[in-house]
């Protein structure tokens, strides 16, 4: 297009559009320059990158997670920060594994974060862990529970806080076996079709095999399946003694609600259920035995203080993801204070020294040195008999901590013989 030759001075619409775009782009660029975050200072706040899903079937849990970690950061900053520096938390929605990876990369490169924390989805945690390892940055994988993350996909820059699938299966499974739901029974399983679901399924099948239960059918459902009617019909056809769910996020809630809708009478239990999802299911819909990593009725001063603070600040009871993000930040803070640095290598060594942390439970937790998994107690829970709930969210009945007080914390966790982690 040669404007010099044309006698017309009126610009064609395409040229005008390009002018608009150019101006717009320049303005946008100028605005970016003015943004303080981009004008990088090398000292100053300690930047921590936080990623968690806030959309999709784990979205409701992500909300709690963000609230938990923000509360921790505010407490730390109010007490003077760490090593005299304030903590600057950059928290974003990880959306899906691919976006999580690119955001993690961007947080390291552009936002210059010292550490990465967060995640609930095991698939996203894996991609973030790979980015962290490549950039030699510490990543605390807080809520992701798949066994393979701590197994064959482990790397020395990633530490795992939440209990892995094996522990969840063992925690609920012990209670199930005790109540007589397993031995000699026919079991039908439902599994979410992603890495966490498959891990649960594998561990569950191993558990049932060890305890003489027979798995008579398995349904693998896509993670975005909202309508379980077809599966419910198949389950009715199979007439199991127990329905064991290996579902993630709010799929459990959905299934339980529709199960109640159809009014079937087979007992339902499962190896994964977050308190938020249990509440969402509602008192009338839920039954069975489930595992959890923490609950708000634990009788330690630490937990009670945390619950009070959280309820006052956010006007709702904290659930396990809020708690675990809170203690993760506190653990990192302790590590920074003890090593007097924010150097990744020193923090890794500190964690690997199996230093003890107060995680607001009866017993202290520590990271196992060879697979970076936090050792801690877990709890089975069930539903109170009808009419005992004092308010809408009070219908859960929590059991005693497992492993028992005299047993080693590592009892339920996968031993070296089962864990393929090599660092």
């Amino acid at each position, binding site marked *: *297009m040669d404007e010099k030759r044309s006698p017309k001075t009126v610009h064609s619409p395409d040229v005008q559009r*390009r002018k608009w775009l150019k101006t717009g782009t320049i303005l946008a660029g100028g605005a*970016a320059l003015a943004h303080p975050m981009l004008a990088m200072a090398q000292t100053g706040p300690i930047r921590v990158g936080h990623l968690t899903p806030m959309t999709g079937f784990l979205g409701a849990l992500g909300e709690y997670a963000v609230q938990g970690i923000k509360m921790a950061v505010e407490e730390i900053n109010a007490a003077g920060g760490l090593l005299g520096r304030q903590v600057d938390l950059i928290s974003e929605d990880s959306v899906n594994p691919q976006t999580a990876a690119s955001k993690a990369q961007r947080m390291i490169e552009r936002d210059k974060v010292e550490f990465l924390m967060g995640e609930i989805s095991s698939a996203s945690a894996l*991609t973030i862990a790979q980015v962290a390892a490549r950039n030699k940055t510490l990543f605390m994988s807080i809520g992701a529970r798949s066994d393979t993350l701590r197994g064959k996909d482990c790397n020395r820059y990633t530490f795992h806080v939440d209990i892995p699938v094996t522990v969840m299966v063992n925690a609920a499974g012990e209670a199930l076996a005790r109540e007589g739901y397993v031995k000699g029974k026919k079991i039908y399983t439902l599994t979410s079709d992603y890495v966490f679901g498959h891990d649960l399924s594998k561990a569950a099948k191993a558990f049932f095999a060890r305890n003489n239960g027979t798995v008579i059918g398995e349904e693998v459902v896509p993670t975005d399946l909202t309508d379980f009617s077809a599966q419910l019909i198949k389950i009715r056809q199979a007439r199991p003694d127990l329905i064991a769910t290996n579902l993630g996020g709010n799929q459990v809630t959905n299934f339980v609600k529709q199960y109640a809708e159809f009014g079937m009478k087979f007992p339902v239990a499962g190896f994964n259920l977050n308190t938020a999802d249990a509440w969402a299911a509602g008192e009338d819909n839920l039954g069975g035995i489930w595992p959890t990593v923490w609950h708000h009725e634990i009788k330690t001063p630490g937990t009670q203080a945390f619950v009070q603070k959280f309820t006052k600040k956010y006007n709702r009871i904290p659930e396990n993801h809020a708690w675990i993000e809170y203690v993760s930040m506190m653990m990192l803070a302790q590590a920074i204070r003890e090593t007097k640095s924010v150097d990744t290598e020193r923090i890794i060594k500190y964690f690997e020294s199996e230093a003890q942390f107060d995680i607001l439970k009866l017993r202290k937790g520590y990271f196992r040195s060879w697979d970076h998994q936090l050792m801690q107690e877990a709890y089975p829970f069930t539903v109170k008999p009808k009419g005992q709930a004092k308010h809408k969210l009070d219908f859960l009945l929590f059991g005693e901590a497992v492993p028992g007080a005299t047993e080693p914390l590592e009892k339920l966790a996968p031993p070296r013989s089962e864990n393929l982690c090599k660092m």
Partner: protein
Amino acid sequence: MTKILNPHHRPLWVGAICLVLLPFCMQGIGLTLDVATVVVILAIAAMGLNLLVGYTGLVSFGHSAWFGIGGYAAALAQLHWFKDQIVLPFAFSLLFTATLALVVGYLILRRRGVYFSLLTLALCALTFAISFRWTSLTGGEGGLGGIERGSLGPIDLNSHLNYYILTAVIGFAVLWFLLRIVRSPFGHVLVAIRENQQRATFQGYDIDRYKLLAFVLSATITGLAGALVVFLHRLAAAESTTVAFSGELLAMVVIGGMHNFLGPALGALFFLLFRELFSMYTNNWLLYFGLVFVGFIIFSAQDLRGFAAARVSSAPTRGRNGP
């Protein structure tokens, strides 16, 4: 000397200069080199799409399917056959995408207009369903990780700069290639098909073959962009095949200008700047981007030449040398 400088080659000059300046501008406003690489990749994808939309008049709502297929093909090639290499997986990806596009194009180009667009939409949704669910092949939700960039001879591609240079060189090659196509007799027939398909048939052109070739070229170029992004992120994921991403590609083409050769590239830059800069201020940047997109269509509807069926074709506003 004057021959190189003449305005005939202007798009190439503009392209080359922009490719050189882009990393500096990006880093100047605080974005990273990887973001610059993504801009070039999206520009390649959008220009590939525009060959079909802007020049041939076939609106594809499912081009992200090709983006994803190109990426998965390259990833699978590396993971199963050509460990740690980059050239052979790329070659395989191009070949695979082109062949698949040939088959698919042959089937769906028999329909025109809205039906064709709906078919591409269905295809895209189908591709997403397959990439999300066929876990054993595509890694399902988690995708295929563990992709390595390797090296090209002595050049280590793990460096951000080296990978950008590779992408920019490929981008320039695509630019040159598209320019040649668009200016060739083949390209002019495409425009004729866009303006009035019946008349082109009367003039004796076998429009089915032209449309098919345009479809294959368009899909392959977008597939190449998909392969580039997989090696950039070292991950192939279902996110690349969503209908939403197809819409974003289309938005880049429409906003950037589909009757201008470099328009889609500008649209890609605009989209990315919008995303990176606005997402710092608000989580709802896509809302504003969508509003801009809708606004563009409403207010410049008559500019989308070739689509307003009732409009008489006006005299060309461009010089003899083409767009």
